[in-house]
């Protein structure tokens, strides 16, 4: 399918082709319609945009650098130039802050003083707790008990920031169940509560709004690469769970057809094992968490819990815009196993002195497969969506250490 260059995505009712939309109980419709109306108004409000820009620069530390990773480029054959978009250097250590600053500012404008969120790895929860503290709002974060165990440090960080972490014991006790609980809370408290969803998933307008807030990643990259190289990049590589850092990087280049997009899903133990989080590779069209997209599900339409070593990618759905990119061929989606991702952490640590989070480690792990097929001197930008501090225990467990055996 050829895309019309003028296509504005999503359409007025939140559809990306056959994907997206708004599949929620009626109790939530009013909140979503109100949110959409307010967001569309604020998007054009110069004061809102100015305030957001100031927060992103003075508080979150943007723009984040676009760094030429020379030793990594050499280690991978020296044929192409690899740049890292350093979202790991943003405040709180990941790209999640771009979205939570935007949405918390929005909550302030629409007069909602209680913030709720779901979190898997805890990065979105920490970013939400951070911006809620900054605005003086109360904040409740839903987190599966299994994830709380895996990410103890982030639980403590959220509590330190004044948020209440609510353990979720339903279902598989991970991100999908935390999202269910957050939606249920929002249904009951919609008058005074804003729900900050952490990725480009959920009912319209969330996939659009989160994408817009995360697009700062791609917009900065464009300016930075033009300055350094005088031309657009050839390839963009980013990990995809729900898919917010990848959409943030890709979307501003949507109409630049020479720029190829590569989304890297979590292959877990391998996508033939059934234990993975590769919704695009192995999912089927379904309605999950309020929108239509590719979903890991059984023959009977029940959602299958995902698996990934990285809690941030451990989600059985994916944003509707990614499903659309897949269907139209605008992006290619591949997957990387837990083991490959863990090895890639080591590679980046040893060549560049950077320990990436396990999520973007999936993007780095794809480079050895991608690069041999690229033209010499290609420009490759990888989104380094977060730093690896939160994952050092997992890394230690899997990779060991010389003084640790």
């Amino acid at each position, binding site marked *: 399918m050829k895309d019309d260059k003028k296509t504005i995505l999503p359409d007025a*009712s939140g559809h990306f082709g056959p994907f997206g*939309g*708004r*599949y*929620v*109980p*009626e*109790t939530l*419709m*009013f*909140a979503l*319609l109100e949110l959409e109306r307010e967001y569309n108004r604020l998007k054009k409000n110069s004061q809102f945009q100015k305030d957001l820009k100031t927060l992103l620069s003075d508080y979150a530390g943007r723009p984040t650098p676009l760094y030429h990773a020379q030793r990594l480029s050499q280690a991978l054959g020296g044929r192409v130039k690899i740049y890292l978009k350093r979202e790991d250097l943003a405040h709180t250590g990941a790209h999640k802050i771009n979205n939570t600053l935007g949405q918390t500012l929005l909550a302030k404008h629409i007069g909602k003083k209680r913030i709720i969120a779901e979190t898997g790895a805890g990065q979105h929860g920490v970013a939400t707790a951070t911006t809620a503290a900054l605005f003086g709002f109360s904040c409740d974060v839903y987190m599966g008990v299994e994830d709380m165990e895996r990410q103890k440090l982030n639980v403590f960080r959220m509590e330190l920031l004044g948020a209440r972490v609510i353990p979720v014991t*339903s*279902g598989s006790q991970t991100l*999908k*169940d935390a999202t*269910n609980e957050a*939606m*249920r809370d929002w*249904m*009951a*408290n*919609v*008058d005074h509560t804003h729900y900050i969803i952490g990725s480009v998933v959920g009912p319209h307008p969330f996939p659009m709004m989160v994408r817009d807030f995360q697009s700062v990643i791609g917009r900065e990259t464009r300016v930075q690469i033009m300055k350094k190289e005088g031309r657009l990049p050839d390839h963009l590589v980013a990990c995809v769970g729900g898919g917010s850092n990848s959409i943030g990087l890709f979307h501003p280049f949507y109409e630049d057809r020479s720029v190829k997009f590569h989304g890297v899903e979590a292959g877990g133990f391998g996508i033939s094992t059934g234990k993975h989080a590769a919704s695009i590779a192995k999912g*089927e*069209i*379904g*309605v*999950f*968490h*309020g929108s239509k997209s590719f*979903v890991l*599900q059984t*023959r*009977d*339409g*029940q*959602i299958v819990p995902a698996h990934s070593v990285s809690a941030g990618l451990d989600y059985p759905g994916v944003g509707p815009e990614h499903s659309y990119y897949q269907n139209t061929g605008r992006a290619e989606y591949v997957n990387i196993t837990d083991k490959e991702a863990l090895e890639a952490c080591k590679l980046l640590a040893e060549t560049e002195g950077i320990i990436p989070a396990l999520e973007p480690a999936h993007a780095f792990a794809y480079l050895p497969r991608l690069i041999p097929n690229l033209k010499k001197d290609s420009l490759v930008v990888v989104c380094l969506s977060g730093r690896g501090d939160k994952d050092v225990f997992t890394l230690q467990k899997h990779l060991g250490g010389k003084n640790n055996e």
Partner: protein
Amino acid sequence: MNRIDALFAQKRKEGKTALLLYVTAGFPDLKTTEALIPVLEKAGADLIEIGVPFSDPIADGPTIQKASSLSLKAGATLKKIIDTIRALRRKTQVPLLLFSSYNPVLKYDPEKLIRDASGAGVDGILLPDLPPEEADRVIALCERARISHVFLIAPTTPPDRAEKIVKESSGFIYYVSTKGVTGARDKLDRSISAHVAQLRKLTDKPICVGFGISKPEHAKSLKGKVAGIVVGSALIREIEAGKTREDRLERAAQFTRNLARALE
């Protein structure tokens, strides 16, 4: 006229409020569901909502979530539920409304589902996470199969939107009495009567009220004010409390009789 329309026409003539009961199909197993529905009818239920279990229901509270998850563990699927309904239709003519999150229906294929369900004896369908904006195809399929398509209206639904929803809804309008999830509550929201009165101005279709209704007192307070009341979680708790199948059926029957008496 399908069984749902006939029910409300009859109740209107008698000036009575109908008792609608929600059961999670397959909880604790489909054999119990098959035995339960004629028992509920005999005890005074006027319509049964057959809940299809889903792994990730957004609108359900803990009671129905738990029942759904146990039902799935026991092996319930949409196909088996339809087979159960087909078997039930040999025993009972009580109106049956299939109540399901949209994904199992989408996966089954809406066209096939509505054909199979109506063929098995389902009289209507309610998909709580499929708002009218996304429901064109399902509405058309239901009309072709002559089954009702019921939509929800919430306390947060603005008047102009409510006007559209009452037009799209057939069989009855389901007014959700509280802002949160399903589940028994101690007290009913005081705004129910006012909201129902507002809706009355928009339509003369039957308006039923559900979410949070659990006791005979609740039933009594709504008697005569609405076309029907829906009770779900409180019934499921009774079933859950039973030790054997007979015990479960007896508890459910007693619970239903108490509610039905309150509506007399």
